């Protein structure tokens, strides 16, 4: 078996694939157990590639004080921790 001339004789049937047809195909498949098995994405916000996420647990009064201070300064808690780190290192 050789030669592309033989392949020229191969035919494809026209398939008008409308949204309605795909929906019908999905319905037929689902009735027979052919379900949507696309893996679900992990829920929640994706981690930022620009920042680093800390997960510190502190005593309640310390946490409240840090939150209040950041709010009073008009910065995020992360920015306040950056300042604290800078002071600690400096």
């Amino acid at each position, binding site marked *: *078996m050789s030669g592309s001339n033989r392949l020229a004789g191969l*035919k494809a049937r026209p398939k008008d694939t409308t949204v309605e047809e795909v929906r019908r195909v999905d319905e037929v498949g689902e009735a027979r157990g052919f379900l949507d098995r696309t893996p679900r994405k992990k829920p929640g916000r994706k981690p930022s590639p620009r920042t680093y996420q800390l997960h510190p647990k502190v005593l309640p009064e310390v946490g409240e004080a840090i939150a209040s201070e950041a709010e009073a300064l008009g910065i995020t808690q992360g920015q306040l921790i950056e300042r604290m780190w800078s002071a600690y290192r400096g």
Partner: protein
Amino acid sequence: MPVIVMASPKGGVGKSTCAVLLASEFARMGADVTVLDCDPNKSLTRWASHGAPSGVTLKSDVGRSEIVPTIRSADGDGKIVIVDLEGVASQLVSRAISQADLVIVPMQPTALDAEIGSEALALVREEEEALGRSIRHAVVLTKTSAAVKSRVHKELEAQLNGAGIDVIEPSLVARAAFSELFAYGGDLTAMMNDPEMVTGGKVDKALANAQAFTEAVYERLK
């Protein structure tokens, strides 16, 4: 040009092997073959990573939402599209079947393969009814014995023929060269001509089997 879909909700029946053999042989005949690897196990991607034969283009990671547009964009003059599906009952499978000119259901000659594979055949028939057009489909028995036709093999063939199901002859025999294609990449002709490639079986017999199988598929696409 035609779209050939390998479908069975059961894994390990030989869908990827059929896809590789057909892609290689049709490419050798001069066709521009696009192979869509829709199997999360990525068997075809692994095969192509060792070197796909000339004329074969692989597209990986084709999911449920991309399958219809990807088949449509790959289809064209002088092109053959071969779709290797995952071995589960999913909407990806039902959507791919709707785009097929020929659905091939590989089946080992065992009662379990026949029972699970028949789900794919039933789905094709229901899709034909829903879409109001025929979708040609056929079973190929795989991993069969080269020496003797087992009792189960004969019974299954008789049942399929009795039910009016098209059974592709020849079956695909259990050959070491077929499984080793995934280790070496390329095609059986390259394997036969390269003394560096060591197989535990007879490559010439495997090649003859693959060519006869491709010829039988070709006859169904005319």
